[in-house]
């Protein structure tokens, strides 16, 4: 069962040495952090490593968190930096990330789903599949905006970008996601969208 304390209260307790409080923070944010990591890594094992490293780094630097932004915004900036470092270490060329046409959707993005089951043909499946085909930055911005409860300003802060850049990227990401969803669904898309 998750704690009812606020993030700020859990942080304060963690800083006094209460590790159980930090475990509560991890439980609270792990799904989102993992999803965000998966937007960059594409492989569940790698995403889990990024997410784990992010929480460890956040724990180490928790004392430097001054509470001027939401904890989630600060945490997502840690995830973003960790993911970038991880990808660099994995020697994934930057141009392959930026070039949408060369971008290859690999294993496990939709591994939790079986394409042959009726369940896999749900709205969620097609949406996940379409998100997996987006550029990592686009997928991350869409996720932060719709599921992270982050404003454009907060996304900009987390990703180290200008607010206007994020606005343009979000606009394009939505268009691309809509197109990919339509392409994946073909006839079904008309019912969905």
């Amino acid at each position, binding site marked *: 069962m998750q704690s009812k304390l606020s993030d700020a209260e859990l942080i304060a307790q963690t800083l006094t040495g209460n*590790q159980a409080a930090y475990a509560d923070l991890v439980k609270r944010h792990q799904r989102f952090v993992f999803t965000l990591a998966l937007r960059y890594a594409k492989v569940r094992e790698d995403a889990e490593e990024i997410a784990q490293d992010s*929480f*460890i780094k956040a724990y180490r630097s928790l004392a430097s968190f001054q509470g001027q932004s939401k904890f989630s915004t600060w945490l997502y900036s840690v995830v973003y930096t960790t993911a970038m470092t991880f990808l660099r270490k994995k020697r994934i060329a930057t141009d392959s990330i930026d070039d949408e046409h060369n971008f290859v959707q690999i294993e496990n993005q939709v591994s939790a789903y079986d394409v042959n089951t009726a369940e896999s043909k749900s709205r*969620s499946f097609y949406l996940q599949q379409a998100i997996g085909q987006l550029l990592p930055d686009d997928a991350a911005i869409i996720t932060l905006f719709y599921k992270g409860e982050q404003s454009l300003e907060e996304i900009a802060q987390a990703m180290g970008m200008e607010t206007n850049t994020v606005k343009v990227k979000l*606009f394009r990401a*939505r*268009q691309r996601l809509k197109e990919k969803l339509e392409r994946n669904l073909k006839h079904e898309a008309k019912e969905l*969208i």
Partner: protein
Amino acid sequence: MNNIEEKLWDYIDGRCTPEEQNAISALIDEDAGVRLQFEQMLSANTSFTAMELDEPSMAFTYNVMEAIRTENARVPLKAAINKRIIRGIGIFFTVTLLALLVLVITSVRWSAQGLSVNLTAGFKMPAINYSDAKIVVQAFVFFDVMLGLYLFDAYLRKKRAARSV
């Protein structure tokens, strides 16, 4: 960016001023094309909002906390060992230097060049058996050399290990 689409997204996201909101509402009511576009965008927005988050493995929280506990346990131990080693080396060299200083002072022949000043001023230096002292000095030097070689060896091993990672 397409201007009307941008405005419609701002309208859907609630980022418009009241004036802009009224203007877009009126445009949606009047223009069938814009209305269709708005409805499609609204539907897409609803789909995006329904996006599901992925679930990490069951042991995720445990793994994170275990990694933190391991890290916390490792750091103080490392620090403690380092402090002891540094203090030990410091004490050893201080004692060695003091011993050598005493030895040098006691072995100096103060009146050798006709110096008539009594530097000891009544202080009686400890009597040292010089044949024993020579062995002690040799032992100190031998120990220093061995310690130096040991530390140098440890340094080289560490360097090689770091290079092989």
